[in-house]
Protein backbone atom coordinates (compact mmCIF):
# COMPACT_ATOMS: atom_id res chain seq x y z
CA UNK A 1 0.00 0.00 0.00
CA UNK A 2 1.39 3.40 -0.95
CA UNK A 3 2.12 6.14 1.54
CA UNK A 4 1.33 9.85 1.69
CA UNK A 5 4.17 12.35 2.20
CA UNK A 6 3.50 12.48 5.94
CA UNK A 7 3.48 8.70 6.25
CA UNK A 8 6.66 8.42 4.19
CA UNK A 9 8.59 10.91 6.30
CA UNK A 10 7.40 9.39 9.59
CA UNK A 11 8.23 5.89 8.34
CA UNK A 12 11.68 6.98 7.26
CA UNK A 13 12.34 8.74 10.57
CA UNK A 14 11.20 5.74 12.58
CA UNK A 15 13.75 3.45 10.99
CA UNK A 16 12.19 2.41 7.71
CA UNK A 17 9.28 0.17 6.83
CA UNK A 18 5.83 1.65 6.61
CA UNK A 19 3.39 3.47 8.85
CA UNK A 20 -0.38 3.74 8.45
CA UNK A 21 -3.19 5.67 10.10
CA UNK A 22 -3.70 4.52 13.68
CA UNK A 23 -0.02 3.69 14.28
CA UNK A 24 2.10 5.45 16.86
CA UNK A 25 5.46 6.33 15.32
CA UNK A 26 8.47 7.11 17.49
CA UNK A 27 10.74 9.10 15.21
CA UNK A 28 14.19 10.67 15.05
CA UNK A 29 13.90 14.44 15.23
CA UNK A 30 16.17 16.21 12.74
CA UNK A 31 15.53 19.72 14.08
CA UNK A 32 14.29 20.76 17.54
CA UNK A 33 13.43 24.46 17.79
CA UNK A 34 13.14 26.09 21.22
CA UNK A 35 11.65 29.57 21.56
CA UNK A 36 11.68 32.10 24.38
CA UNK A 37 8.36 30.80 25.71
CA UNK A 38 10.05 27.39 26.17
CA UNK A 39 12.28 28.95 28.83
CA UNK A 40 9.53 30.41 31.01
CA UNK A 41 9.89 29.00 34.54
CA UNK A 42 6.45 27.28 34.54
CA UNK A 43 7.56 24.95 31.74
CA UNK A 44 11.35 24.83 31.59
CA UNK A 45 13.31 22.13 33.40
CA UNK A 46 17.03 22.03 34.02
CA UNK A 47 18.37 19.84 31.19
CA UNK A 48 21.34 17.66 32.16
CA UNK A 49 22.12 16.15 28.75
CA UNK A 50 21.48 17.27 25.17
CA UNK A 51 21.21 14.53 22.57
CA UNK A 52 22.75 16.53 19.69
CA UNK A 53 23.45 20.25 20.11
CA UNK A 54 23.76 20.68 16.33
CA UNK A 55 20.12 19.60 15.90
CA UNK A 56 18.85 22.26 18.29
CA UNK A 57 17.84 25.78 17.25
CA UNK A 58 16.93 28.50 19.76
CA UNK A 59 14.91 31.54 18.67
CA UNK A 60 13.63 34.28 20.95
CA UNK A 61 10.50 35.52 19.24
CA UNK A 62 7.32 36.05 21.24
CA UNK A 63 8.88 38.56 23.59
CA UNK A 64 11.61 40.50 21.78
CA UNK A 65 13.08 42.87 22.67
CA UNK A 66 12.05 41.85 26.18
CA UNK A 67 8.93 43.81 27.21
CA UNK A 68 8.88 42.47 30.79
CA UNK A 69 11.25 41.23 33.46
CA UNK A 70 9.86 37.69 33.06
CA UNK A 71 10.72 37.78 29.35
CA UNK A 72 14.21 39.07 30.06
CA UNK A 73 14.66 36.24 32.58
CA UNK A 74 13.50 33.63 30.02
CA UNK A 75 16.05 35.02 27.56
CA UNK A 76 18.79 34.73 30.19
CA UNK A 77 17.83 31.09 30.84
CA UNK A 78 17.93 30.38 27.10
CA UNK A 79 21.30 32.03 26.58
CA UNK A 80 22.81 30.12 29.51
CA UNK A 81 21.41 26.85 28.12
CA UNK A 82 22.91 27.55 24.67
CA UNK A 83 26.25 28.42 26.22
CA UNK A 84 26.34 25.34 28.46
CA UNK A 85 25.69 22.87 25.65
CA UNK A 86 27.42 24.69 22.79
CA UNK A 87 24.26 25.31 20.76
CA UNK A 88 25.40 27.55 17.93
CA UNK A 89 22.09 28.31 16.22
CA UNK A 90 20.91 30.87 18.79
CA UNK A 91 18.77 33.70 17.37
CA UNK A 92 18.95 36.31 20.09
CA UNK A 93 17.74 39.91 20.01
CA UNK A 94 19.78 41.52 17.23
CA UNK A 95 20.42 41.10 13.50
CA UNK A 96 19.37 37.42 13.45
CA UNK A 97 16.19 38.05 15.43
CA UNK A 98 12.84 36.88 14.14
CA UNK A 99 9.79 34.70 14.59
CA UNK A 100 11.02 31.10 14.93
CA UNK A 101 9.03 29.78 11.95
CA UNK A 102 10.22 32.68 9.78
CA UNK A 103 13.84 32.18 10.86
CA UNK A 104 13.51 28.47 10.05
CA UNK A 105 12.33 29.50 6.58
CA UNK A 106 14.94 32.23 6.00
CA UNK A 107 17.78 29.87 6.87
CA UNK A 108 16.19 26.69 5.48
CA UNK A 109 16.66 24.98 8.84
CA UNK A 110 13.66 22.86 7.83
CA UNK A 111 15.19 19.98 5.92
CA UNK A 112 12.88 18.40 3.30
CA UNK A 113 11.92 14.83 4.10
CA UNK A 114 12.73 15.10 7.83
CA UNK A 115 10.96 15.77 11.14
CA UNK A 116 11.03 19.15 12.91
CA UNK A 117 9.41 20.01 16.25
CA UNK A 118 8.89 23.28 18.12
CA UNK A 119 6.83 24.09 21.18
CA UNK A 120 4.67 26.54 19.23
CA UNK A 121 1.45 25.56 17.51
CA UNK A 122 2.34 27.17 14.16
CA UNK A 123 5.34 24.92 13.58
CA UNK A 124 3.51 23.36 10.62
CA UNK A 125 4.80 26.49 8.81
CA UNK A 126 7.85 24.39 7.87
CA UNK A 127 5.56 22.04 5.97
CA UNK A 128 6.10 24.42 3.04
CA UNK A 129 9.58 22.88 2.92
CA UNK A 130 8.31 19.31 2.56
CA UNK A 131 9.16 18.84 6.22
CA UNK A 132 7.03 16.90 8.72
CA UNK A 133 6.88 19.74 11.20
CA UNK A 134 4.53 19.85 14.16
CA UNK A 135 3.84 22.11 17.08
CA UNK A 136 4.26 20.12 20.26
CA UNK A 137 4.18 20.77 23.99
CA UNK A 138 6.87 21.63 26.51
CA UNK A 139 7.45 18.00 27.62
CA UNK A 140 7.78 16.95 23.95
CA UNK A 141 10.52 19.54 23.53
CA UNK A 142 12.38 18.32 26.59
CA UNK A 143 12.11 14.75 25.26
CA UNK A 144 13.30 15.77 21.77
CA UNK A 145 16.24 17.81 23.04
CA UNK A 146 17.43 15.16 25.52
CA UNK A 147 16.78 11.99 23.49
CA UNK A 148 16.40 13.12 19.86
CA UNK A 149 12.97 11.44 19.70
CA UNK A 150 9.31 12.37 19.38
CA UNK A 151 6.10 10.35 19.15
CA UNK A 152 3.27 10.90 16.70
CA UNK A 153 -0.10 9.28 16.23
CA UNK A 154 -0.41 8.74 12.49
CA UNK A 155 -3.60 10.32 11.17
CA UNK A 156 -5.43 10.06 7.89
CA UNK A 157 -4.50 12.50 5.13
CA UNK A 158 -6.60 14.96 3.17
CA UNK A 159 -5.01 15.89 -0.14
CA UNK A 160 -5.63 19.22 -1.91
CA UNK A 161 -4.77 19.48 -5.60
CA UNK A 162 -4.40 23.02 -6.92
CA UNK A 163 -5.09 23.91 -10.52
CA UNK A 164 -4.83 27.27 -12.29
CA UNK A 165 -3.30 30.45 -10.91
CA UNK A 166 -4.42 33.07 -8.38
CA UNK A 167 -5.92 36.26 -9.84
CA UNK A 168 -4.02 39.50 -9.10
CA UNK A 169 -4.72 40.78 -5.60
CA UNK A 170 -5.72 37.34 -4.32
CA UNK A 171 -3.17 35.60 -2.10
CA UNK A 172 -2.39 32.41 -0.20
CA UNK A 173 -4.29 33.80 2.78
CA UNK A 174 -7.42 33.82 0.65
CA UNK A 175 -6.80 30.18 -0.36
CA UNK A 176 -6.68 29.38 3.34
CA UNK A 177 -9.83 31.35 4.14
CA UNK A 178 -11.60 29.51 1.34
CA UNK A 179 -10.51 26.07 2.62
CA UNK A 180 -11.26 26.95 6.26
CA UNK A 181 -14.64 28.36 5.31
CA UNK A 182 -15.63 25.44 3.12
CA UNK A 183 -14.18 22.44 4.91
CA UNK A 184 -13.68 23.60 8.52
CA UNK A 185 -11.40 21.82 10.98
CA UNK A 186 -9.20 18.84 10.04
CA UNK A 187 -8.85 17.38 13.55
CA UNK A 188 -6.41 14.45 13.74
CA UNK A 189 -5.87 14.64 9.96
CA UNK A 190 -2.84 15.53 7.89
CA UNK A 191 -3.20 18.07 5.11
CA UNK A 192 -1.10 17.76 1.95
CA UNK A 193 -0.89 20.27 -0.89
CA UNK A 194 0.14 19.59 -4.48
CA UNK A 195 -1.25 19.52 -8.00
CA UNK A 196 -0.29 21.38 -11.14
CA UNK A 197 -1.18 24.82 -9.69
CA UNK A 198 1.00 24.43 -6.59
CA UNK A 199 4.16 25.61 -8.30
CA UNK A 200 2.49 28.90 -9.25
CA UNK A 201 2.56 29.78 -5.53
CA UNK A 202 5.72 31.49 -4.27
CA UNK A 203 7.67 29.84 -1.45
CA UNK A 204 6.39 32.65 0.79
CA UNK A 205 2.80 32.00 -0.25
CA UNK A 206 3.24 28.32 0.58
CA UNK A 207 4.58 29.34 3.99
CA UNK A 208 1.42 31.33 4.69
CA UNK A 209 -0.78 28.42 3.73
CA UNK A 210 1.29 25.87 5.67
CA UNK A 211 1.35 28.07 8.79
CA UNK A 212 -2.42 28.48 8.77
CA UNK A 213 -2.76 24.69 8.85
CA UNK A 214 -2.56 25.03 12.65
CA UNK A 215 -5.92 26.79 12.49
CA UNK A 216 -7.36 23.77 10.67
CA UNK A 217 -6.28 21.78 13.76
CA UNK A 218 -4.32 19.57 11.35
CA UNK A 219 -1.58 17.22 12.54
CA UNK A 220 0.93 17.76 9.73
CA UNK A 221 0.66 20.13 6.76
CA UNK A 222 3.04 19.26 3.92
CA UNK A 223 3.66 20.65 0.45
CA UNK A 224 5.02 18.56 -2.39
CA UNK A 225 8.60 19.39 -3.26
CA UNK A 226 9.23 21.14 -6.59
CA UNK A 227 12.30 22.61 -8.30
CA UNK A 228 11.77 26.05 -6.77
CA UNK A 229 11.71 24.57 -3.28
CA UNK A 230 14.74 22.35 -3.76
CA UNK A 231 16.73 25.28 -5.16
CA UNK A 232 15.64 27.52 -2.27
CA UNK A 233 16.82 25.00 0.30
CA UNK A 234 20.09 24.16 -1.45
CA UNK A 235 21.01 27.86 -1.64
CA UNK A 236 20.68 28.17 2.14
CA UNK A 237 21.51 24.82 3.70
CA UNK A 238 24.42 22.59 2.69
CA UNK A 239 23.01 19.52 4.43
CA UNK A 240 22.16 16.67 2.04
CA UNK A 241 18.48 15.70 2.06
CA UNK A 242 15.95 13.46 0.41
CA UNK A 243 12.54 15.06 -0.24
CA UNK A 244 9.39 12.95 0.01
CA UNK A 245 6.84 12.77 -2.78
CA UNK A 246 3.61 10.84 -2.27
CA UNK A 247 3.34 7.35 -3.71
CA UNK A 248 1.04 7.18 -6.74
CA UNK A 249 -1.14 4.70 -4.82
CA UNK A 250 -1.10 6.64 -1.54
CA UNK A 251 -4.37 6.30 0.35
CA UNK A 252 -6.20 9.51 1.25
CA UNK A 253 -9.16 10.13 3.50
CA UNK A 254 -10.34 12.50 0.80
CA UNK A 255 -8.93 14.23 -2.26
CA UNK A 256 -10.14 17.76 -3.08
CA UNK A 257 -9.40 19.98 -6.07
CA UNK A 258 -9.21 23.78 -5.90
CA UNK A 259 -9.10 26.06 -8.95
CA UNK A 260 -6.92 28.95 -7.79
CA UNK A 261 -8.27 31.13 -10.59
CA UNK A 262 -11.77 30.97 -9.11
CA UNK A 263 -10.80 32.46 -5.72
CA UNK A 264 -11.46 35.97 -4.42
CA UNK A 265 -10.41 37.91 -1.32
CA UNK A 266 -12.26 36.73 1.80
CA UNK A 267 -12.47 37.83 5.43
CA UNK A 268 -12.97 35.71 8.54
CA UNK A 269 -15.42 37.16 11.05
CA UNK A 270 -14.28 37.62 14.68
CA UNK A 271 -13.72 34.86 17.26
CA UNK A 272 -13.13 31.81 15.05
CA UNK A 273 -10.92 31.13 12.06
CA UNK A 274 -12.71 28.09 10.62
CA UNK A 275 -16.26 27.94 9.25
CA UNK A 276 -16.31 31.73 9.49
CA UNK A 277 -15.23 33.16 6.08
CA UNK A 278 -17.35 35.68 4.19
CA UNK A 279 -17.03 37.69 0.98
CA UNK A 280 -15.64 41.16 1.58
CA UNK A 281 -18.87 42.73 0.32
CA UNK A 282 -20.60 41.37 3.45
CA UNK A 283 -18.37 43.33 5.82
CA UNK A 284 -17.11 46.21 3.66
CA UNK A 285 -17.44 49.53 5.46
CA UNK A 286 -17.02 48.03 8.94
CA UNK A 287 -15.04 50.73 10.78
CA UNK A 288 -11.64 49.64 12.20
CA UNK A 289 -9.30 51.03 14.86
CA UNK A 290 -6.28 48.98 13.87
CA UNK A 291 -4.92 47.12 10.88
CA UNK A 292 -2.10 44.62 11.41
CA UNK A 293 0.17 42.71 9.02
CA UNK A 294 2.69 40.35 10.56
CA UNK A 295 3.22 36.99 12.34
CA UNK A 296 4.67 33.71 11.12
CA UNK A 297 1.82 33.58 8.61
CA UNK A 298 2.09 37.01 7.00
CA UNK A 299 5.41 38.63 7.87
CA UNK A 300 7.09 37.53 4.63
CA UNK A 301 8.75 39.77 2.05
CA UNK A 302 5.85 39.07 -0.32
CA UNK A 303 3.42 40.35 2.31
CA UNK A 304 5.39 43.56 2.85
CA UNK A 305 5.65 44.06 -0.93
CA UNK A 306 1.88 43.77 -1.36
CA UNK A 307 1.25 46.14 1.54
CA UNK A 308 3.64 48.67 0.00
CA UNK A 309 2.00 48.32 -3.40
CA UNK A 310 -1.41 49.09 -1.92
CA UNK A 311 -0.40 52.12 0.17
CA UNK A 312 2.18 53.63 -2.20
CA UNK A 313 1.52 57.37 -2.54
CA UNK A 314 -1.54 57.17 -0.27
CA UNK A 315 -2.22 57.81 3.41
CA UNK A 316 -3.54 55.63 6.23
CA UNK A 317 -6.95 56.92 7.35
CA UNK A 318 -7.01 59.34 10.27
CA UNK A 319 -7.81 57.56 13.50
CA UNK A 320 -6.63 54.18 12.17
CA UNK A 321 -3.42 52.57 13.39
CA UNK A 322 -1.58 50.52 10.74
CA UNK A 323 1.03 48.22 12.29
CA UNK A 324 3.42 46.17 10.17
CA UNK A 325 5.77 43.60 11.73
CA UNK A 326 8.27 41.81 9.48
CA UNK A 327 8.81 38.11 10.26
CA UNK A 328 12.56 38.48 10.73
CA UNK A 329 15.12 41.27 10.85
CA UNK A 330 16.55 39.79 7.63
CA UNK A 331 13.16 40.30 5.95
CA UNK A 332 13.08 43.82 7.43
CA UNK A 333 16.46 44.60 5.85
CA UNK A 334 15.40 43.14 2.49
CA UNK A 335 12.20 45.24 2.59
CA UNK A 336 14.26 48.29 3.44
CA UNK A 337 16.52 47.68 0.46
CA UNK A 338 13.52 47.16 -1.83
CA UNK A 339 11.96 50.44 -0.70
CA UNK A 340 8.88 48.85 0.90
CA UNK A 341 9.64 50.17 4.38
CA UNK A 342 9.96 53.74 3.20
CA UNK A 343 6.69 53.45 1.27
CA UNK A 344 4.91 52.06 4.32
CA UNK A 345 6.32 54.73 6.63
CA UNK A 346 5.44 57.54 4.20
CA UNK A 347 1.87 56.27 4.15
CA UNK A 348 1.70 56.41 7.93
CA UNK A 349 2.31 52.79 8.94
CA UNK A 350 4.29 51.91 12.05
CA UNK A 351 6.88 49.25 11.23
CA UNK A 352 8.00 47.33 14.33
CA UNK A 353 10.99 45.06 14.93
CA UNK A 354 10.49 41.40 14.03
CA UNK A 355 8.53 39.59 16.77
CA UNK A 356 5.29 37.66 17.28
CA UNK A 357 4.13 40.95 18.81
CA UNK A 358 0.52 41.93 18.24
CA UNK A 359 -0.47 38.52 16.84
CA UNK A 360 -0.12 36.87 20.24
CA UNK A 361 -1.31 39.93 22.13
CA UNK A 362 1.93 40.17 24.03
CA UNK A 363 3.20 43.60 23.05
CA UNK A 364 3.47 46.04 20.12
CA UNK A 365 -0.13 47.06 19.38
CA UNK A 366 -2.30 45.26 21.91
CA UNK A 367 -6.05 45.94 21.43
CA UNK A 368 -8.14 47.84 23.96
CA UNK A 369 -11.76 47.21 25.03
CA UNK A 370 -14.34 47.21 22.20
CA UNK A 371 -11.73 48.04 19.56
CA UNK A 372 -12.00 46.61 16.05
CA UNK A 373 -9.00 45.22 14.20
CA UNK A 374 -8.46 43.61 10.83
CA UNK A 375 -5.43 41.39 10.87
CA UNK A 376 -3.26 39.42 8.48
CA UNK A 377 -1.83 37.09 11.11
CA UNK A 378 -2.70 33.68 12.53
CA UNK A 379 -5.66 33.85 14.93
CA UNK A 380 -8.72 35.92 15.69
CA UNK A 381 -9.84 34.18 18.90
CA UNK A 382 -11.62 36.27 21.51
CA UNK A 383 -8.97 38.07 23.56
CA UNK A 384 -6.15 36.85 21.32
CA UNK A 385 -4.73 40.30 20.57
CA UNK A 386 -5.72 42.06 23.77
CA UNK A 387 -9.00 42.78 25.51
CA UNK A 388 -11.66 40.03 25.14
CA UNK A 389 -14.23 42.60 24.01
CA UNK A 390 -12.12 43.57 20.98
CA UNK A 391 -13.35 42.22 17.62
CA UNK A 392 -10.75 40.76 15.25
CA UNK A 393 -11.48 40.26 11.55
CA UNK A 394 -8.91 38.37 9.48
CA UNK A 395 -7.92 38.95 5.86
CA UNK A 396 -5.00 38.96 3.44
CA UNK A 397 -2.23 41.58 3.63
CA UNK A 398 -3.75 43.28 0.56
CA UNK A 399 -7.17 43.45 2.23
CA UNK A 400 -5.66 44.71 5.49
CA UNK A 401 -3.62 47.42 3.72
CA UNK A 402 -6.65 48.54 1.68
CA UNK A 403 -8.67 48.67 4.91
CA UNK A 404 -5.98 50.75 6.65
CA UNK A 405 -6.34 53.38 3.90
CA UNK A 406 -10.13 53.38 4.13
CA UNK A 407 -10.33 53.23 7.94
CA UNK A 408 -12.86 50.47 7.33
CA UNK A 409 -12.82 46.98 5.86
CA UNK A 410 -12.28 47.37 2.11
CA UNK A 411 -11.81 45.21 -0.98
CA UNK A 412 -8.24 45.46 -2.32
CA UNK A 413 -9.20 44.91 -5.95
CA UNK A 414 -8.75 48.48 -7.19
CA UNK A 415 -5.06 48.44 -6.23
CA UNK A 416 -4.32 45.49 -8.49
CA UNK A 417 -6.20 46.43 -11.65
CA UNK A 418 -3.90 46.08 -14.61
CA UNK A 419 -1.60 43.64 -12.78
CA UNK A 420 -1.03 40.40 -14.62
CA UNK A 421 -2.39 37.37 -12.82
Amino acid at each position, binding site marked *: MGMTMTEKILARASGGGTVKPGDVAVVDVETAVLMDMSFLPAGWRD*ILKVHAPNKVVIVFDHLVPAPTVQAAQAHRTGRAFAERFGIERLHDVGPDQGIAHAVVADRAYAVPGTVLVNGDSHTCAAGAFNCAARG*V*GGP*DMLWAVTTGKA*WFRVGETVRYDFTGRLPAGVSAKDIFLSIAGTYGAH*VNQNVEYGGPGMSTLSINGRRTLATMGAELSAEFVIFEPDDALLQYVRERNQQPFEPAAPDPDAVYHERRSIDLGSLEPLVALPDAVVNNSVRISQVAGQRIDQAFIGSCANGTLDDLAVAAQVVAGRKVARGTRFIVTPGTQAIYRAALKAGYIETLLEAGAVVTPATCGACSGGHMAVLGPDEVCITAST*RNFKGRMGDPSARIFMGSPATVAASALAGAIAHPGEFFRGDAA
Partner: protein
Amino acid sequence: MSGDNMLAGRVWKFGDNINTDLMLPGPYLYQSAAAQAKAVFINNRPGWLEEMRQGDVIIGGFNYGMGSSRPAARSLRNCGVGFLLAETINGLFFRNSVNHGFRAFECPGVTRAFEEGDTAELSIEDWTATNRRTGQTLAVTPVPKMLLDMMLGGGILPLLEAQGLIAPKPLP
Protein backbone atom coordinates in the same frame (compact mmCIF):
# COMPACT_ATOMS: atom_id res chain seq x y z
CA MET B 1 -15.03 2.00 41.84
CA SER B 2 -11.52 0.88 42.55
CA GLY B 3 -8.30 0.25 40.73
CA ASP B 4 -6.37 2.45 38.32
CA ASN B 5 -8.40 1.38 35.31
CA MET B 6 -11.84 2.19 36.73
CA LEU B 7 -12.73 5.79 37.43
CA ALA B 8 -15.92 7.67 38.16
CA GLY B 9 -16.81 11.29 38.69
CA ARG B 10 -19.45 13.98 38.55
CA VAL B 11 -19.98 15.45 35.07
CA TRP B 12 -19.49 19.02 33.96
CA LYS B 13 -20.38 19.71 30.33
CA PHE B 14 -18.53 22.06 28.02
CA GLY B 15 -19.28 22.58 24.36
CA ASP B 16 -17.49 22.34 21.02
CA ASN B 17 -14.15 23.95 20.20
CA ILE B 18 -13.12 24.65 23.80
CA ASN B 19 -9.76 26.33 23.21
CA THR B 20 -6.60 26.29 25.28
CA ASP B 21 -6.87 30.01 26.05
CA LEU B 22 -10.05 29.29 28.04
CA MET B 23 -8.27 26.67 30.16
CA LEU B 24 -5.07 28.67 30.47
CA PRO B 25 -5.60 32.39 29.81
CA GLY B 26 -2.64 34.21 28.25
CA PRO B 27 -1.61 36.38 31.21
CA TYR B 28 -1.12 33.24 33.35
CA LEU B 29 1.53 31.81 30.99
CA TYR B 30 4.11 33.78 32.93
CA GLN B 31 3.04 32.44 36.31
CA SER B 32 3.69 29.18 38.16
CA ALA B 33 1.93 25.95 37.27
CA ALA B 34 0.06 26.21 40.60
CA ALA B 35 -1.21 29.70 39.74
CA GLN B 36 -2.19 28.48 36.25
CA ALA B 37 -4.34 25.74 37.81
CA LYS B 38 -6.35 28.45 39.59
CA ALA B 39 -7.24 30.14 36.27
CA VAL B 40 -9.06 27.29 34.51
CA PHE B 41 -12.21 28.54 32.73
CA ILE B 42 -12.18 31.82 34.71
CA ASN B 43 -13.32 33.78 31.64
CA ASN B 44 -16.00 31.50 30.22
CA ARG B 45 -17.25 29.91 33.47
CA PRO B 46 -16.29 32.05 36.46
CA GLY B 47 -16.78 30.28 39.77
CA TRP B 48 -16.48 26.76 38.33
CA LEU B 49 -13.22 26.08 40.12
CA GLU B 50 -14.90 26.68 43.48
CA GLU B 51 -17.78 24.35 42.63
CA MET B 52 -15.84 21.44 41.14
CA ARG B 53 -14.48 18.65 43.35
CA GLN B 54 -11.43 16.42 43.03
CA GLY B 55 -12.11 13.67 40.50
CA ASP B 56 -14.90 15.48 38.63
CA VAL B 57 -15.25 14.79 34.92
CA ILE B 58 -15.26 17.17 31.97
CA ILE B 59 -17.34 16.24 28.95
CA GLY B 60 -16.47 18.19 25.84
CA GLY B 61 -17.71 18.36 22.27
CA PHE B 62 -15.78 18.48 19.01
CA ASN B 63 -12.10 19.52 18.76
CA TYR B 64 -11.65 19.85 22.50
CA GLY B 65 -8.45 21.77 23.29
CA MET B 66 -8.01 23.54 19.96
CA GLY B 67 -5.46 26.35 19.79
CA SER B 68 -2.03 26.75 21.24
CA SER B 69 0.62 24.44 22.64
CA ARG B 70 0.33 25.88 26.15
CA PRO B 71 0.09 23.24 28.92
CA ALA B 72 -3.68 23.49 29.45
CA ALA B 73 -3.87 19.74 30.13
CA ARG B 74 -1.50 20.16 33.05
CA SER B 75 -3.82 22.77 34.54
CA LEU B 76 -6.79 20.38 34.29
CA ARG B 77 -4.74 17.68 36.01
CA ASN B 78 -3.51 20.06 38.69
CA CYS B 79 -6.91 21.52 39.49
CA GLY B 80 -8.21 18.02 40.13
CA VAL B 81 -10.17 16.95 37.04
CA GLY B 82 -10.38 13.14 37.08
CA PHE B 83 -10.68 12.65 33.35
CA LEU B 84 -11.98 14.17 30.12
CA LEU B 85 -14.32 12.57 27.61
CA ALA B 86 -14.91 14.42 24.34
CA GLU B 87 -16.38 13.76 20.90
CA THR B 88 -12.98 14.59 19.39
CA ILE B 89 -9.79 15.90 20.99
CA ASN B 90 -7.41 18.31 19.29
CA GLY B 91 -4.13 16.56 18.45
CA LEU B 92 -1.91 19.05 20.24
CA PHE B 93 -4.07 19.02 23.37
CA PHE B 94 -4.01 15.22 23.32
CA ARG B 95 -0.20 15.22 23.12
CA ASN B 96 -0.07 17.51 26.11
CA SER B 97 -2.54 15.28 27.96
CA VAL B 98 -0.38 12.21 27.41
CA ASN B 99 2.82 14.05 28.20
CA HIS B 100 1.50 15.73 31.35
CA GLY B 101 -0.29 12.64 32.65
CA PHE B 102 -3.87 13.89 32.21
CA ARG B 103 -6.52 11.29 31.31
CA ALA B 104 -8.20 12.45 28.08
CA PHE B 105 -10.23 10.15 25.83
CA GLU B 106 -12.41 10.37 22.75
CA CYS B 107 -15.91 9.01 23.17
CA PRO B 108 -18.26 9.58 20.21
CA GLY B 109 -21.80 10.35 21.32
CA VAL B 110 -20.77 11.46 24.81
CA THR B 111 -22.34 14.91 24.56
CA ARG B 112 -25.85 13.53 24.13
CA ALA B 113 -25.45 10.69 26.58
CA PHE B 114 -24.72 12.82 29.63
CA GLU B 115 -26.35 15.71 31.45
CA GLU B 116 -24.49 17.95 33.80
CA GLY B 117 -24.42 16.47 37.29
CA ASP B 118 -24.59 12.84 36.07
CA THR B 119 -21.93 10.43 37.22
CA ALA B 120 -19.67 9.07 34.48
CA GLU B 121 -17.90 5.75 34.95
CA LEU B 122 -14.86 5.02 32.80
CA SER B 123 -13.24 1.64 32.30
CA ILE B 124 -9.85 1.82 30.66
CA GLU B 125 -9.80 -1.99 30.52
CA ASP B 126 -13.08 -2.42 28.63
CA TRP B 127 -12.81 1.01 26.91
CA THR B 128 -16.32 2.00 27.89
CA ALA B 129 -17.98 4.98 29.52
CA THR B 130 -21.25 4.49 31.41
CA ASN B 131 -23.82 6.98 32.62
CA ARG B 132 -24.72 5.73 36.12
CA ARG B 133 -28.11 7.48 36.00
CA THR B 134 -29.33 6.10 32.68
CA GLY B 135 -27.24 2.98 32.46
CA GLN B 136 -26.22 3.86 28.92
CA THR B 137 -22.77 2.62 27.96
CA LEU B 138 -20.67 4.08 25.13
CA ALA B 139 -17.46 2.90 23.49
CA VAL B 140 -14.34 4.91 24.29
CA THR B 141 -11.69 5.05 21.56
CA PRO B 142 -8.72 3.04 22.86
CA VAL B 143 -5.40 4.85 23.28
CA PRO B 144 -2.35 2.91 22.05
CA LYS B 145 -0.53 1.16 24.90
CA MET B 146 2.66 3.17 24.73
CA LEU B 147 0.74 6.43 25.05
CA LEU B 148 -1.64 5.07 27.68
CA ASP B 149 1.27 3.91 29.84
CA MET B 150 2.77 7.39 29.60
CA MET B 151 -0.54 9.09 30.37
CA LEU B 152 -1.27 6.91 33.40
CA GLY B 153 2.34 7.04 34.56
CA GLY B 154 2.37 10.81 34.99
CA GLY B 155 3.69 11.81 31.59
CA ILE B 156 7.12 12.26 30.03
CA LEU B 157 8.83 14.25 32.75
CA PRO B 158 9.07 11.40 35.33
CA LEU B 159 10.67 9.26 32.61
CA LEU B 160 13.26 11.93 31.82
CA GLU B 161 13.98 12.39 35.52
CA ALA B 162 14.45 8.64 35.99
CA GLN B 163 16.89 8.57 33.09
CA GLY B 164 18.91 11.45 34.52
CA LEU B 165 18.16 13.67 31.51
CA ILE B 166 16.52 16.49 33.48
CA ALA B 167 16.99 17.57 37.08
CA PRO B 168 14.28 16.37 39.48
CA LYS B 169 11.72 18.95 40.53
CA PRO B 170 8.70 18.27 42.70
CA LEU B 171 5.28 18.80 41.18
CA PRO B 172 3.55 21.99 42.29
